[in-house]
């Protein structure tokens, strides 16, 4: 999973009510519809939904988690430490002058539809992205002169300057030429939602998708890495995390992904459940709208934000007003660490040279000095332009933790005379607001790849309107980004990456609040074979590669989704909660109907 804007999107809120009722009613029943045959089914619960599985236009975590099982990248990541390893490409070498990379491509791979896979498919996919300027992927393929496939097992990648980018490696799904060539344009391709008939080379293929409910993948028995042990992989969408955790306790699902700290705390002592704390690969940040007329996308699309968000003094004061330790302790319950820079992975992480500490008095002093004064005595400062310091602040309904964090931040900023008007929206809406540049501040998150190239690319000027949260634009940073892609040595690249993290930290277009531990749990009485990536303290599923995926198997004969009924009924409290919702809904309906009848 990569760009993992964490969690997703329940589309309509009515669905939440219905979903809760349906799930309430469904608890206790067997989840898998086809359990009677001997198929081994593994069910994953998540609180996110998917919008598209189009491999070039996804945004959210579950989309990437699913696409990873269907489409492959040409190089992979080691289980031990994320180092680059062979995958669809088995060997590679860089020429003496550093301008040509030559890869040897496997000859034993077939597409899901039976067509043979060749180096030509890789070259076609990369060239398509470059020709059509697919913004999501283009920064993986820098300085490209030409990419060709002289024969079926050889890929040649020529660049204009020496670069290591081809082996970072690019997180680009390889698509079949015979499918991709049917699409005239980027917009044409975007209309396809990755379903039906996704054709990939991966161990699974998507066969059923009921939006807002579940989607199902079937094993590809001809997978070149060996047929998967699990025949069916089901992703079930829960509109409510409580319901997901109950379903896990009942054995109705086998795995719960991306659990919030609050609920994770409640299952660590369950006997049949193994709860895993993965080391942080994601961060949660608070962004400030940086749109100005100098940024092309902002100028074209228009923008609307409070004048303070582009004032460095204001953002510095905000950072002084925020106590990250409290957020980690009270909101993440310790499942995370205070974050400062945008690269959490230990290999590339650089501590900021000059950490801004929690100091509300300093924050007040900075605002005073910058001309933010409370001239009308209402407790709220005014911007030097006279506009009151009332900013819009968006938190995410999909991530209740951001609402808790939001409440802390609202109170802290109130103490320095800044008023925030908070709104909680789902990710669909947030994406709209984000792309129309009509916002002041929001909290969102990123899942960061092992290699920092992609994450750092999202802050470059050209990514405004594509991946850039804030439309931050800094020529010095853009140059550093190119420099790190063409760095002559690892040491040089490391120092450039560290420098970039510091530039971002000092300019603070966004404040990294914390690094999140990746919290997952599974039924250890039913399933075995999970391995971690990285091996020491990593995640146990949805990894960079198929380490757990192809290794999970029923803990004993007759395992699967069969067990779980002996765990007793659903907790009485949940019944009460469900009953309460039912009563409220029925009450409203009945009272309204009664009124309507009396009208005559």
């Amino acid at each position, binding site marked *: 999973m990569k760009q993992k804007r964490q969690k997703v999107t329940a589309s309509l809120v009515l669905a939440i009510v219905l979903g809760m009722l349906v799930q309430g009613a469904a608890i206790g029943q067997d989840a898998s519809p086809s359990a009677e045959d001997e198929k081994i089914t593994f069910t994953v619960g998540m609180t996110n939904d998917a919008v598209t599985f189009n491999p070039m236009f996804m945004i959210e975590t579950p989309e990437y988690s699913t696409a990873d099982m269907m489409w492959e990248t040409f190089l992979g990541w080691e289980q031990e430490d994320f180092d680059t390893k062979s995958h669809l490409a088995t060997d590679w070498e860089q020429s003496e002058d550093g301008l040509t990379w030559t890869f040897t491509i496997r000859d034993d791979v077939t597409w899901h539809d039976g067509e043979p896979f060749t180096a030509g498919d890789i070259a076609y996919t990369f060239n398509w992205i470059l020709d059509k300027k697919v913004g999501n992927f283009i920064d993986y393929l820098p300085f490209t002169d030409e990419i060709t496939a002289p024969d079926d097992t050889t890929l040649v990648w020529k660049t204009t300057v020496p670069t290591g980018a081809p082996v970072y490696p690019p997180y680009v799904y390889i698509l079949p030429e015979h499918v991709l060539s049917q699409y005239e344009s980027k917009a044409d391709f975007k209309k396809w939602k990755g379903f039906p008939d996704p054709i990939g080379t991966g161990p699974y293929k998507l066969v059923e998708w009921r939006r807002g409910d579940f989607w199902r993948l079937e094993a590809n028995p001809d997978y070149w890495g060996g047929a998967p042990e699990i025949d069916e992989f089901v992703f079930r969408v829960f509109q409510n995390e409580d319901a997901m955790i109950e379903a896990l306790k009942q054995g109705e699902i086998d795995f719960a992904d991306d659990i919030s700290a609050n609920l994770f705390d409640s299952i660590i002592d369950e006997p049949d459940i193994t709860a895993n704390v993965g080391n942080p690969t994601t961060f949660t940040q608070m962004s400030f709208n940086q749109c100005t007329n100098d940024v092309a996308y902002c100028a074209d699309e228009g923008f609307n934000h409070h004048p303070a968000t582009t004032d460095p003094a204001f953002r510095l004061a905000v950072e002084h007003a925020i106590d990250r330790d409290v957020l980690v302790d009270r909101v993440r319950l310790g499942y995370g660490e205070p974050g400062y820079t945008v690269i959490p992975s230990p290999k590339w992480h650089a501590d900021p040279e000059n950490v801004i500490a929690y100091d509300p008095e300093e924050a007040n002093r900075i605002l005073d000095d910058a001309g933010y004064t409370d001239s009308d005595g209402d407790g709220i400062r005014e911007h030097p332009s006279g506009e009151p310091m009332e900013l819009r602040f968006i938190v995410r309904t999909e991530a209740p933790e951001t609402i808790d964090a939001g409440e802390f931040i609202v109170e802290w900023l109130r103490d320095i005379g800044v008023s925030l008007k908070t709104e909680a929206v789902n990710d669909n809406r947030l994406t709209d607001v984000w792309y129309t540049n009509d916002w002041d501040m929001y909290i969102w998150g990123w899942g960061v790849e092992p290699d920092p190239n992609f994450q750092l690319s999202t802050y470059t000027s050209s990514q405004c309107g594509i991946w850039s949260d804030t439309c931050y634009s800094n020529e010095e940073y853009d140059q550093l980004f190119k420099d790190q892609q063409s760095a002559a040595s690892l040491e040089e690249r490391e120092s450039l990456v560290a420098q970039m993290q510091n530039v971002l930290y000092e300019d603070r277009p966004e404040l990294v609040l914390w690094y999140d531990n990746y919290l997952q749990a599974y039924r250890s009485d039913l399933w075995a074979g999970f391995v971690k990536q990285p091996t020491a303290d990593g995640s146990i599923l949805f990894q960079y590669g198929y380490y757990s995926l192809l290794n999970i198997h029923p803990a004993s004969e007759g395992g699967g989704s069969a067990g779980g009924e002996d765990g007793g009924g659903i907790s009485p409290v949940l019944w009460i909660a469900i009953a309460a919702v039912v009563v409220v809904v029925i009450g409203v309906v009945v009272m309204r109907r009664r009124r*309507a009848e009396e009208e005559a």
Partner: protein
Amino acid sequence: MQPPPLHVGAEPPPQPVLEEEPPPPPGSPRHIAWARRRAAVRQFWAAYRKDKMGLAGLSILLVFIAVAIYAVFADDTGLSITEATGPRLDPPSLEYPFGTDIQGRSVFTLTLHGSKISLLVGLSATVITMVIGSAVGLIAGFRGGWIDQLLMRITDWGLVIPWLMLAISLAAIFGQSLFVIILVIGLTTWPSTARLVRSQTLSVRERPYVERSRALGASNWHLVSRHVLPNVMPVIMANTVLIVAIAILSETALSFLGLGDPLGKSWGSILERASDGGAATRGAWWWLGAPGLCIVLVVLAFTMIGFALDQIINPRLRER
């Protein structure tokens, strides 16, 4: 039917406004009117007092109103997340009568302060409903003709549209705040009131004394304000009380669905935060229970009062 003529006859001469109104002399029409009104109130209270359900509802409601008024003046630092010092998810105890939430705030304090917001939303939304509903019903019923047709089609449209969907859409368009919630509930609840008021207006309009008044040259305004409205008012009042119950439930539903102010402290918002915070999974029944019970009690109180009023006011239900 022929619409009544506009502005027929002379308006009553403007009354001189006095600093202190002298008591109307006995035997004057004003005096008689006031005496009649006082008698009506006494009679109403006598009837209401006999209704046990109505009295029980009124007592519960008075308690909650007292609590809400207290909450307006009470110290609200207990609502602050940064100032919270209590243990996380502590069950009810002497120190925390309703336990604590996941951030260590007293659920009692949250619920106490929630009362003012829930009552405020309920009452304000009802005012909007009553104003719109009564105006539409009165105009449609009194004027008749194409105005009636037009207003009733709009009302029918409002009645058949799924209100929750409409409320969600409106909340999504206008953003999340207390004011929007009030507006959304008010704007989705008025059609049933309009229907009710219209049917009563139709019946009152045809009564002989209205005919007589019109024959004597009374203006439309005079007819509506002096004859129709006073006779429709009891129906509106009984309806109002029941609408408050619906409005409070609607506020709870919308806040629970996350359409209210996300950091608000209404009972619905407390329920939402409890649900998101895993209160059910973690067995923190008090976090859901306290606001839930309050909602049930207040809604029950309004409903009981509404039924009692209905018994007294509705001639078909009145025991003679």
